[in-house]
Protein backbone atom coordinates (compact mmCIF):
# COMPACT_ATOMS: atom_id res chain seq x y z
CA UNK A 1 0.00 0.00 0.00
CA UNK A 2 1.45 3.34 -0.95
CA UNK A 3 -0.55 5.85 1.01
CA UNK A 4 0.33 9.51 0.53
CA UNK A 5 -0.59 12.23 2.96
CA UNK A 6 -0.12 15.97 2.52
CA UNK A 7 1.70 16.65 5.74
CA UNK A 8 3.55 19.89 5.32
CA UNK A 9 1.77 22.78 3.59
CA UNK A 10 3.77 25.15 1.41
CA UNK A 11 4.00 28.10 3.84
CA UNK A 12 5.39 25.78 6.50
CA UNK A 13 8.00 24.48 4.11
CA UNK A 14 9.01 27.95 3.02
CA UNK A 15 9.27 28.98 6.63
CA UNK A 16 11.19 25.89 7.57
CA UNK A 17 13.94 26.21 5.02
CA UNK A 18 14.33 29.96 5.38
CA UNK A 19 14.54 29.31 9.07
CA UNK A 20 16.99 26.43 8.75
CA UNK A 21 19.42 28.31 6.54
CA UNK A 22 18.89 31.44 8.59
CA UNK A 23 19.72 29.71 11.84
CA UNK A 24 22.76 27.96 10.43
CA UNK A 25 24.03 31.28 9.11
CA UNK A 26 23.38 32.87 12.49
CA UNK A 27 25.23 30.12 14.31
CA UNK A 28 28.29 30.34 12.07
CA UNK A 29 28.53 34.13 11.86
CA UNK A 30 27.63 34.40 15.53
CA UNK A 31 30.57 32.18 16.37
CA UNK A 32 32.85 34.48 14.42
CA UNK A 33 31.46 37.58 16.08
CA UNK A 34 31.88 36.17 19.55
CA UNK A 35 35.19 34.44 18.96
CA UNK A 36 36.89 36.43 16.20
CA UNK A 37 40.29 35.04 17.06
CA UNK A 38 39.22 31.40 16.79
CA UNK A 39 36.29 31.22 14.41
CA UNK A 40 37.13 32.69 11.04
CA UNK A 41 34.15 31.56 9.03
CA UNK A 42 34.10 34.45 6.61
CA UNK A 43 37.46 35.75 7.71
CA UNK A 44 35.95 39.21 7.63
CA UNK A 45 34.40 40.56 10.77
CA UNK A 46 32.39 43.19 9.01
CA UNK A 47 30.85 40.70 6.62
CA UNK A 48 30.08 38.48 9.59
CA UNK A 49 28.25 41.29 11.38
CA UNK A 50 26.28 42.26 8.28
CA UNK A 51 25.36 38.70 7.43
CA UNK A 52 24.40 38.01 11.02
CA UNK A 53 22.11 41.03 11.09
CA UNK A 54 20.55 40.06 7.77
CA UNK A 55 20.02 36.44 8.75
CA UNK A 56 18.45 37.65 11.99
CA UNK A 57 15.93 39.68 10.04
CA UNK A 58 15.20 36.75 7.71
CA UNK A 59 14.59 34.45 10.66
CA UNK A 60 12.34 37.04 12.28
CA UNK A 61 10.24 37.50 9.16
CA UNK A 62 9.98 33.78 8.54
CA UNK A 63 8.97 33.24 12.14
CA UNK A 64 6.15 35.69 11.45
CA UNK A 65 5.14 33.61 8.45
CA UNK A 66 5.10 30.43 10.51
CA UNK A 67 3.08 32.02 13.26
CA UNK A 68 0.53 33.68 11.01
CA UNK A 69 0.05 30.55 8.97
CA UNK A 70 -0.48 28.20 11.90
CA UNK A 71 -2.33 30.62 14.16
CA UNK A 72 -4.64 32.32 11.67
CA UNK A 73 -4.78 30.29 8.47
CA UNK A 74 -4.55 26.65 9.53
CA UNK A 75 -5.64 27.46 13.07
CA UNK A 76 -4.06 24.37 14.54
CA UNK A 77 -0.98 25.88 16.14
CA UNK A 78 -1.76 24.87 19.69
CA UNK A 79 -3.19 21.48 18.78
CA UNK A 80 -0.06 20.58 16.85
CA UNK A 81 2.57 22.03 19.12
CA UNK A 82 1.29 21.85 22.70
CA UNK A 83 1.64 18.44 24.33
CA UNK A 84 -1.71 17.06 25.47
CA UNK A 85 -2.32 15.60 28.91
CA UNK A 86 -2.05 12.14 27.40
CA UNK A 87 1.28 13.14 25.87
CA UNK A 88 2.63 14.28 29.19
CA UNK A 89 1.36 11.37 31.23
CA UNK A 90 2.27 8.56 28.87
CA UNK A 91 3.39 9.76 25.46
CA UNK A 92 6.71 11.18 26.47
CA UNK A 93 7.87 8.11 28.34
CA UNK A 94 6.59 5.82 25.62
CA UNK A 95 8.41 7.84 22.98
CA UNK A 96 11.61 8.01 25.03
CA UNK A 97 11.56 4.28 25.55
CA UNK A 98 11.12 3.86 21.82
CA UNK A 99 14.09 6.08 20.92
CA UNK A 100 16.33 4.73 23.62
CA UNK A 101 15.47 1.05 23.48
CA UNK A 102 12.69 -0.22 21.18
CA UNK A 103 14.22 1.42 18.16
CA UNK A 104 17.40 -0.63 18.44
CA UNK A 105 15.36 -3.80 18.65
CA UNK A 106 13.48 -2.85 15.47
CA UNK A 107 10.27 -2.15 17.34
CA UNK A 108 7.48 0.03 15.82
CA UNK A 109 7.17 3.76 16.47
CA UNK A 110 4.31 4.23 18.94
CA UNK A 111 3.35 7.52 17.32
CA UNK A 112 1.02 7.53 14.33
CA UNK A 113 1.25 10.58 12.21
CA UNK A 114 -1.72 12.47 10.74
CA UNK A 115 -1.85 16.07 9.47
CA UNK A 116 -3.69 17.01 12.66
CA UNK A 117 -1.31 15.12 14.90
CA UNK A 118 2.04 15.40 13.18
CA UNK A 119 4.39 15.25 16.10
CA UNK A 120 5.00 12.73 18.82
CA UNK A 121 5.06 13.85 22.43
CA UNK A 122 8.80 14.54 22.50
CA UNK A 123 8.70 16.39 19.22
CA UNK A 124 5.88 18.58 20.48
CA UNK A 125 7.81 19.45 23.59
CA UNK A 126 11.02 20.19 21.74
CA UNK A 127 9.37 22.11 18.92
CA UNK A 128 7.22 24.10 21.34
CA UNK A 129 10.25 25.02 23.42
CA UNK A 130 12.10 26.08 20.28
CA UNK A 131 9.26 27.93 18.60
CA UNK A 132 7.51 29.52 21.57
CA UNK A 133 10.48 30.24 23.81
CA UNK A 134 13.84 30.17 22.07
CA UNK A 135 13.07 31.84 18.74
CA UNK A 136 11.11 34.73 20.30
CA UNK A 137 13.83 35.16 22.90
CA UNK A 138 16.60 35.27 20.34
CA UNK A 139 14.61 37.71 18.23
CA UNK A 140 13.89 40.08 21.10
CA UNK A 141 17.45 40.05 22.44
CA UNK A 142 18.82 40.40 18.92
CA UNK A 143 16.64 43.37 18.03
CA UNK A 144 17.62 45.08 21.28
CA UNK A 145 21.31 44.49 20.66
CA UNK A 146 21.07 45.84 17.15
CA UNK A 147 19.69 49.09 18.57
CA UNK A 148 21.40 49.51 21.92
CA UNK A 149 21.57 53.26 21.73
CA UNK A 150 18.08 53.97 20.52
CA UNK A 151 16.42 51.33 22.69
CA UNK A 152 18.62 52.00 25.66
CA UNK A 153 15.76 52.40 28.12
CA UNK A 154 14.29 49.10 27.05
CA UNK A 155 17.67 47.44 27.33
CA UNK A 156 17.87 48.69 30.89
CA UNK A 157 14.31 47.65 31.66
CA UNK A 158 15.01 44.04 30.75
CA UNK A 159 18.11 43.89 32.90
CA UNK A 160 20.90 45.40 30.86
CA UNK A 161 23.20 44.32 28.10
CA UNK A 162 24.98 41.79 30.21
CA UNK A 163 21.79 39.81 30.53
CA UNK A 164 20.84 40.26 26.90
CA UNK A 165 24.18 39.08 25.61
CA UNK A 166 24.11 36.11 27.97
CA UNK A 167 20.60 35.09 26.96
CA UNK A 168 21.31 35.58 23.27
CA UNK A 169 24.42 33.45 23.49
CA UNK A 170 22.83 30.62 25.51
CA UNK A 171 19.80 30.42 23.21
CA UNK A 172 22.18 30.32 20.26
CA UNK A 173 23.89 27.35 21.86
CA UNK A 174 20.52 25.68 22.37
CA UNK A 175 19.82 26.11 18.65
CA UNK A 176 23.14 24.57 17.83
CA UNK A 177 22.47 21.61 20.12
CA UNK A 178 18.92 21.31 18.74
CA UNK A 179 20.24 21.26 15.19
CA UNK A 180 22.46 18.24 15.83
CA UNK A 181 19.65 16.34 17.50
CA UNK A 182 16.97 17.46 15.09
CA UNK A 183 18.81 16.60 11.91
CA UNK A 184 19.95 13.32 13.32
CA UNK A 185 16.51 12.23 14.49
CA UNK A 186 15.11 13.22 11.08
CA UNK A 187 17.21 10.40 9.61
CA UNK A 188 15.44 7.76 11.69
CA UNK A 189 12.64 7.20 9.13
CA UNK A 190 12.23 4.04 7.16
CA UNK A 191 15.02 5.31 4.96
CA UNK A 192 17.45 7.96 6.14
CA UNK A 193 15.93 10.57 3.85
CA UNK A 194 12.31 9.58 4.23
CA UNK A 195 11.53 12.54 6.45
CA UNK A 196 13.44 15.09 4.46
CA UNK A 197 11.39 14.59 1.33
CA UNK A 198 8.06 15.72 2.77
CA UNK A 199 9.76 18.71 4.29
CA UNK A 200 10.65 19.62 0.71
CA UNK A 201 7.61 18.41 -1.30
CA UNK A 202 4.95 18.42 1.37
CA UNK A 203 3.90 14.86 0.67
CA UNK A 204 4.65 12.05 2.99
CA UNK A 205 4.96 8.68 1.31
CA UNK A 206 4.21 6.43 4.19
CA UNK A 207 4.52 2.86 3.06
CA UNK A 208 3.65 2.08 6.57
CA UNK A 209 2.25 5.02 8.46
CA UNK A 210 3.51 3.61 11.71
CA UNK A 211 7.05 4.04 10.57
CA UNK A 212 7.56 7.65 11.39
CA UNK A 213 10.27 7.89 13.90
CA UNK A 214 11.44 11.48 14.16
Amino acid at each position, binding site marked *: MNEKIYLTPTPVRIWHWLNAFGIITLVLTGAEIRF*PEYAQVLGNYKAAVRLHDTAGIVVTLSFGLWFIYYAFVARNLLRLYIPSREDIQRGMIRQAVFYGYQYFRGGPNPHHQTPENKFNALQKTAYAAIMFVCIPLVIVTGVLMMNVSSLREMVMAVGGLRLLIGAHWLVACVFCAFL*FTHIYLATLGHTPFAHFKPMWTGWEEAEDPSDRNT
Partner: protein
Amino acid sequence: MSNSSKRWVHRFIWVTAVVFVLAAPWPGGRLLAHAWDTEDCQGCHADLSILEDGGGYLYVDSARYERTAHAEVGCPSCHESVNEDHPDDGVRPSRAKCGECHDEVEAEYTESIHADNATCTDCHNPHEVKPVGQVSGAQMNRPCMECHEEDDVVASHEAWLSQTTRHIRALPCITCHTGSKVYVVTFYVGTFEERAGRSPRVALATHEELMAKAERSEGVTSVIDRDADGRVSVEELRLFYREGRAEGLQLWGMMTPEVATHNYATMDNRWDCSFCHASGPGVVQKSFVALPGPTGDYTRIPVEPGAVLDALYGTPDFYMIGATRSKTMSLIGLLIVAAGLMVPLVHGTLRLLTIRKRREH
Protein backbone atom coordinates in the same frame (compact mmCIF):
# COMPACT_ATOMS: atom_id res chain seq x y z
CA MET B 1 54.00 102.00 53.47
CA SER B 2 55.68 105.20 54.60
CA ASN B 3 57.15 107.63 52.12
CA SER B 4 60.71 106.79 53.09
CA SER B 5 60.36 103.10 52.68
CA LYS B 6 58.70 103.70 49.30
CA ARG B 7 61.72 105.66 48.28
CA TRP B 8 63.95 102.81 49.39
CA VAL B 9 62.00 100.37 47.33
CA HIS B 10 62.32 102.59 44.30
CA ARG B 11 66.00 102.91 44.80
CA PHE B 12 66.37 99.22 45.21
CA ILE B 13 64.52 98.57 41.98
CA TRP B 14 66.68 101.07 40.15
CA VAL B 15 69.88 99.63 41.43
CA THR B 16 68.84 96.12 40.59
CA ALA B 17 67.80 97.21 37.13
CA VAL B 18 71.10 98.95 36.47
CA VAL B 19 73.11 96.01 37.76
CA PHE B 20 71.04 93.77 35.55
CA VAL B 21 71.57 95.80 32.42
CA LEU B 22 75.29 96.10 33.06
CA ALA B 23 75.67 92.45 33.81
CA ALA B 24 73.59 91.38 30.85
CA PRO B 25 75.70 89.65 28.24
CA TRP B 26 74.94 90.13 24.57
CA PRO B 27 72.21 89.77 23.30
CA GLY B 28 70.72 91.81 26.08
CA GLY B 29 67.11 91.56 25.01
CA ARG B 30 66.95 87.98 25.94
CA LEU B 31 67.84 88.48 29.54
CA LEU B 32 65.74 91.58 29.79
CA ALA B 33 62.79 89.50 28.84
CA HIS B 34 63.73 87.12 31.59
CA ALA B 35 63.53 89.97 33.98
CA TRP B 36 59.82 89.61 33.54
CA ASP B 37 58.64 86.29 34.74
CA THR B 38 55.36 84.50 34.34
CA GLU B 39 53.83 86.30 37.27
CA ASP B 40 54.53 89.70 35.71
CA CYS B 41 52.99 88.69 32.44
CA GLN B 42 49.98 87.23 34.16
CA GLY B 43 49.54 90.48 36.06
CA CYS B 44 48.07 91.72 32.82
CA HIS B 45 47.28 88.65 30.73
CA ALA B 46 45.42 86.71 33.40
CA ASP B 47 43.45 89.77 34.32
CA LEU B 48 40.03 89.98 32.78
CA SER B 49 40.51 93.66 32.04
CA ILE B 50 42.84 92.64 29.20
CA LEU B 51 39.74 91.60 27.31
CA GLU B 52 39.07 95.29 26.78
CA ASP B 53 42.57 95.83 25.36
CA GLY B 54 42.22 93.52 22.46
CA GLY B 55 39.90 90.63 23.03
CA GLY B 56 39.78 87.12 24.35
CA TYR B 57 42.89 85.94 22.53
CA LEU B 58 45.05 87.99 24.89
CA TYR B 59 43.65 86.31 27.98
CA VAL B 60 45.65 83.42 29.42
CA ASP B 61 43.74 81.48 32.06
CA SER B 62 46.11 81.23 34.99
CA ALA B 63 44.53 78.22 36.68
CA ARG B 64 44.66 76.21 33.50
CA TYR B 65 48.12 77.37 32.51
CA GLU B 66 49.59 76.53 35.90
CA ARG B 67 48.48 72.94 35.53
CA THR B 68 50.21 72.42 32.19
CA ALA B 69 53.68 71.09 31.59
CA HIS B 70 54.36 74.44 29.94
CA ALA B 71 54.08 76.24 33.27
CA GLU B 72 57.61 75.04 33.97
CA VAL B 73 58.74 76.57 30.72
CA GLY B 74 57.47 80.03 31.63
CA CYS B 75 56.01 82.72 29.40
CA PRO B 76 59.26 84.48 28.52
CA SER B 77 60.93 81.34 27.14
CA CYS B 78 58.30 81.15 24.45
CA HIS B 79 57.87 84.89 23.97
CA GLU B 80 61.47 85.95 24.09
CA SER B 81 61.09 89.30 22.45
CA VAL B 82 58.82 90.74 25.12
CA ASN B 83 60.69 93.49 26.95
CA GLU B 84 59.77 96.08 29.48
CA ASP B 85 58.30 98.41 26.90
CA HIS B 86 55.73 95.80 26.14
CA PRO B 87 52.93 96.29 25.20
CA ASP B 88 53.62 99.86 24.17
CA ASP B 89 56.64 99.19 21.95
CA GLY B 90 54.45 98.22 19.05
CA VAL B 91 56.48 95.03 18.58
CA ARG B 92 54.46 91.95 18.12
CA PRO B 93 55.99 89.46 20.57
CA SER B 94 57.80 86.46 19.16
CA ARG B 95 56.41 82.99 19.58
CA ALA B 96 58.55 79.94 20.01
CA LYS B 97 58.19 77.22 17.43
CA CYS B 98 56.96 74.03 19.00
CA GLY B 99 59.67 72.11 17.20
CA GLU B 100 62.35 73.90 19.22
CA CYS B 101 61.45 71.64 22.11
CA HIS B 102 59.35 68.92 20.51
CA ASP B 103 61.60 68.03 17.65
CA GLU B 104 60.55 64.39 17.50
CA VAL B 105 56.86 65.17 17.32
CA GLU B 106 57.52 67.81 14.74
CA ALA B 107 59.61 65.47 12.61
CA GLU B 108 56.89 62.86 12.72
CA TYR B 109 54.12 65.30 11.97
CA THR B 110 55.97 67.04 9.14
CA GLU B 111 56.24 63.76 7.30
CA SER B 112 52.58 62.90 7.73
CA ILE B 113 49.91 63.45 5.10
CA HIS B 114 48.27 65.89 7.46
CA ALA B 115 51.26 68.27 7.73
CA ASP B 116 49.92 70.65 5.11
CA ASN B 117 46.44 70.66 6.56
CA ALA B 118 46.99 71.98 10.08
CA THR B 119 49.78 73.39 12.25
CA CYS B 120 50.53 72.51 15.85
CA THR B 121 48.65 75.50 17.14
CA ASP B 122 45.55 74.68 15.07
CA CYS B 123 45.14 71.70 17.35
CA HIS B 124 46.86 72.84 20.54
CA ASN B 125 46.50 75.93 22.63
CA PRO B 126 50.06 76.24 23.95
CA HIS B 127 48.73 77.63 27.22
CA GLU B 128 46.44 74.70 27.87
CA VAL B 129 48.39 71.67 26.68
CA LYS B 130 47.62 68.39 28.36
CA PRO B 131 48.97 64.89 28.03
CA VAL B 132 46.63 62.50 26.35
CA GLY B 133 45.70 60.81 29.62
CA GLN B 134 44.27 64.02 31.03
CA VAL B 135 41.80 64.90 28.34
CA SER B 136 38.42 63.45 27.58
CA GLY B 137 37.68 61.81 24.27
CA ALA B 138 35.52 64.77 23.39
CA GLN B 139 38.45 67.10 24.05
CA MET B 140 40.69 64.99 21.85
CA ASN B 141 38.16 65.42 19.08
CA ARG B 142 37.60 69.11 19.58
CA PRO B 143 40.44 70.24 17.30
CA CYS B 144 39.44 67.74 14.62
CA MET B 145 35.88 69.00 14.70
CA GLU B 146 37.06 72.53 13.97
CA CYS B 147 37.83 71.46 10.44
CA HIS B 148 36.06 68.13 9.95
CA GLU B 149 32.29 68.34 10.27
CA GLU B 150 30.88 65.46 12.26
CA ASP B 151 28.22 64.81 9.64
CA ASP B 152 30.85 64.53 6.90
CA VAL B 153 32.91 62.16 8.99
CA VAL B 154 29.92 59.94 9.70
CA ALA B 155 29.00 59.98 6.02
CA SER B 156 32.49 59.05 4.80
CA HIS B 157 32.99 56.36 7.45
CA GLU B 158 29.54 54.87 7.05
CA ALA B 159 30.68 53.31 3.79
CA TRP B 160 32.63 50.66 5.67
CA LEU B 161 32.05 51.12 9.40
CA SER B 162 28.79 49.69 10.69
CA GLN B 163 27.03 51.42 13.60
CA THR B 164 28.98 54.53 12.63
CA THR B 165 27.58 57.04 15.09
CA ARG B 166 28.02 54.59 17.90
CA HIS B 167 31.63 54.00 16.92
CA ILE B 168 32.40 57.69 16.51
CA ARG B 169 30.93 58.26 19.95
CA ALA B 170 33.07 55.56 21.50
CA LEU B 171 36.29 56.22 19.62
CA PRO B 172 38.18 59.49 19.47
CA CYS B 173 39.45 60.11 15.93
CA ILE B 174 43.05 59.64 17.01
CA THR B 175 42.32 56.08 18.14
CA CYS B 176 42.15 55.16 14.48
CA HIS B 177 44.16 57.95 12.91
CA THR B 178 47.38 57.82 14.90
CA GLY B 179 49.54 54.92 15.88
CA SER B 180 49.42 54.23 19.59
CA LYS B 181 50.42 50.69 20.47
CA VAL B 182 48.41 50.55 23.65
CA TYR B 183 44.81 51.47 24.19
CA VAL B 184 42.71 51.66 27.30
CA VAL B 185 39.04 51.86 27.98
CA THR B 186 38.20 55.07 29.72
CA PHE B 187 34.85 55.61 31.33
CA TYR B 188 33.73 59.20 31.58
CA VAL B 189 30.80 60.24 33.68
CA GLY B 190 27.97 61.57 31.60
CA THR B 191 24.79 63.32 32.54
CA PHE B 192 21.68 62.38 30.74
CA GLU B 193 18.45 64.11 30.28
CA GLU B 194 15.27 62.29 29.42
CA ARG B 195 13.51 63.60 26.38
CA ALA B 196 9.98 62.67 25.60
CA GLY B 197 9.78 60.32 22.66
CA ARG B 198 13.50 60.42 21.94
CA SER B 199 16.59 58.81 23.32
CA PRO B 200 18.04 60.76 26.25
CA ARG B 201 20.62 63.43 25.61
CA VAL B 202 23.97 62.42 27.06
CA ALA B 203 26.73 64.92 27.77
CA LEU B 204 29.99 64.76 29.69
CA ALA B 205 29.43 65.81 33.28
CA THR B 206 31.33 68.91 34.35
CA HIS B 207 33.28 69.23 37.56
CA GLU B 208 30.58 71.41 39.08
CA GLU B 209 27.82 68.95 38.25
CA LEU B 210 29.74 66.14 39.85
CA MET B 211 30.68 68.13 42.94
CA ALA B 212 26.98 68.75 43.49
CA LYS B 213 26.50 64.98 43.72
CA ALA B 214 29.74 64.07 45.49
CA GLU B 215 30.57 64.14 49.15
CA ARG B 216 32.03 67.62 49.09
CA SER B 217 34.79 66.98 51.56
CA GLU B 218 36.12 64.01 49.61
CA GLY B 219 36.07 65.59 46.23
CA VAL B 220 34.80 64.56 42.91
CA THR B 221 36.27 61.06 42.95
CA SER B 222 33.83 60.00 45.64
CA VAL B 223 31.01 59.77 43.15
CA ILE B 224 32.49 56.47 42.12
CA ASP B 225 35.45 55.54 44.31
CA ARG B 226 33.38 55.34 47.46
CA ASP B 227 35.97 53.81 49.74
CA ALA B 228 38.58 56.31 48.51
CA ASP B 229 41.20 53.63 47.98
CA GLY B 230 42.27 55.08 44.65
CA ARG B 231 40.80 52.17 42.70
CA VAL B 232 37.43 51.47 41.27
CA SER B 233 36.26 47.98 42.04
CA VAL B 234 33.72 46.15 39.95
CA GLU B 235 31.35 46.43 42.88
CA GLU B 236 31.76 50.22 42.92
CA LEU B 237 31.05 50.31 39.20
CA ARG B 238 27.88 48.36 39.69
CA LEU B 239 26.81 50.50 42.60
CA PHE B 240 27.42 53.61 40.59
CA TYR B 241 25.48 52.11 37.84
CA ARG B 242 22.48 51.32 39.96
CA GLU B 243 22.36 54.56 41.94
CA GLY B 244 23.82 56.95 39.41
CA ARG B 245 20.87 56.31 37.20
CA ALA B 246 18.50 57.92 39.67
CA GLU B 247 20.75 60.97 39.86
CA GLY B 248 20.90 61.39 36.13
CA LEU B 249 24.43 60.04 35.77
CA GLN B 250 25.76 57.27 33.60
CA LEU B 251 29.10 56.08 32.31
CA TRP B 252 30.35 56.76 28.84
CA GLY B 253 32.98 54.32 27.70
CA MET B 254 35.60 55.16 25.12
CA MET B 255 38.58 53.34 23.75
CA THR B 256 41.40 55.85 23.98
CA PRO B 257 45.11 55.74 23.06
CA GLU B 258 47.76 55.85 25.78
CA VAL B 259 50.08 58.04 23.73
CA ALA B 260 49.21 60.43 20.96
CA THR B 261 51.42 60.00 17.94
CA HIS B 262 51.20 62.37 15.02
CA ASN B 263 51.70 60.29 11.92
CA TYR B 264 48.05 60.56 10.81
CA ALA B 265 48.45 57.55 8.62
CA THR B 266 45.21 55.69 8.22
CA MET B 267 46.18 52.56 10.04
CA ASP B 268 45.49 49.59 7.82
CA ASN B 269 44.50 47.44 10.73
CA ARG B 270 41.82 49.90 11.78
CA TRP B 271 39.83 48.65 8.84
CA ASP B 272 40.05 45.29 10.39
CA CYS B 273 37.25 45.15 12.87
CA SER B 274 38.97 42.47 14.91
CA PHE B 275 41.79 44.88 15.70
CA CYS B 276 39.35 46.05 18.34
CA HIS B 277 36.75 43.32 18.43
CA ALA B 278 38.88 40.58 19.86
CA SER B 279 39.09 39.32 23.37
CA GLY B 280 41.90 38.83 25.81
CA PRO B 281 44.80 41.16 26.46
CA GLY B 282 44.70 42.37 22.84
CA VAL B 283 45.17 46.06 22.31
CA VAL B 284 42.98 47.12 25.19
CA GLN B 285 44.92 46.52 28.34
CA LYS B 286 43.55 48.64 31.11
CA SER B 287 40.48 50.47 32.10
CA PHE B 288 40.01 53.73 33.95
CA VAL B 289 37.33 56.00 35.21
CA ALA B 290 38.23 59.60 34.38
CA LEU B 291 36.80 62.51 36.33
CA PRO B 292 37.03 66.19 35.43
CA GLY B 293 38.84 68.65 37.68
CA PRO B 294 37.91 72.30 38.12
CA THR B 295 40.15 73.38 35.22
CA GLY B 296 38.74 70.85 32.81
CA ASP B 297 41.57 68.33 32.85
CA TYR B 298 40.81 64.78 33.82
CA THR B 299 42.13 62.58 36.59
CA ARG B 300 42.03 58.87 35.97
CA ILE B 301 41.30 56.26 38.59
CA PRO B 302 42.29 52.75 37.57
CA VAL B 303 39.62 50.11 37.51
CA GLU B 304 40.69 47.14 39.61
CA PRO B 305 43.25 45.13 37.66
CA GLY B 306 42.24 41.67 36.58
CA ALA B 307 38.62 42.65 36.62
CA VAL B 308 38.83 44.82 33.55
CA LEU B 309 36.94 42.57 31.21
CA ASP B 310 34.49 41.80 33.94
CA ALA B 311 33.95 45.50 34.36
CA LEU B 312 33.42 45.92 30.67
CA TYR B 313 30.98 43.13 30.68
CA GLY B 314 29.13 44.67 33.59
CA THR B 315 28.21 47.95 31.99
CA PRO B 316 25.70 48.63 29.27
CA ASP B 317 27.55 51.76 28.29
CA PHE B 318 30.40 50.13 26.53
CA TYR B 319 29.53 47.20 24.41
CA MET B 320 32.48 46.16 22.39
CA ILE B 321 31.23 42.93 20.94
CA GLY B 322 33.80 40.16 20.82
CA ALA B 323 35.96 41.82 23.43
CA THR B 324 33.40 41.90 26.18
CA ARG B 325 32.34 38.28 26.40
CA SER B 326 32.16 36.35 29.64
CA LYS B 327 34.20 33.18 30.03
CA THR B 328 31.69 31.42 32.25
CA MET B 329 28.90 32.00 29.79
CA SER B 330 31.05 30.72 26.95
CA LEU B 331 31.70 27.55 28.90
CA ILE B 332 28.06 26.90 29.77
CA GLY B 333 27.10 27.47 26.16
CA LEU B 334 29.73 25.12 24.82
CA LEU B 335 28.52 22.44 27.26
CA ILE B 336 25.01 22.79 25.86
CA VAL B 337 26.36 22.37 22.35
CA ALA B 338 28.39 19.34 23.41
CA ALA B 339 25.30 17.78 24.97
CA GLY B 340 23.44 18.26 21.70
CA LEU B 341 26.28 16.63 19.84
CA MET B 342 26.13 13.59 22.11
CA VAL B 343 22.69 12.59 20.81
CA PRO B 344 23.78 11.75 17.27
CA LEU B 345 27.09 10.36 18.48
CA VAL B 346 25.73 7.95 21.08
CA HIS B 347 22.48 7.07 19.36
CA GLY B 348 24.22 6.82 16.00
CA THR B 349 26.83 4.42 17.37
CA LEU B 350 24.20 2.16 18.91
CA ARG B 351 22.28 2.40 15.67
CA LEU B 352 25.24 1.10 13.70
CA LEU B 353 25.87 -1.67 16.19
CA THR B 354 22.26 -2.85 16.04
CA ILE B 355 21.72 -2.73 12.29
CA ARG B 356 21.54 -6.49 12.02
CA LYS B 357 19.13 -6.92 14.85
CA ARG B 358 16.76 -4.35 13.37
CA ARG B 359 16.88 -5.98 9.95
CA GLU B 360 15.70 -9.20 11.53
CA HIS B 361 12.47 -7.57 12.63
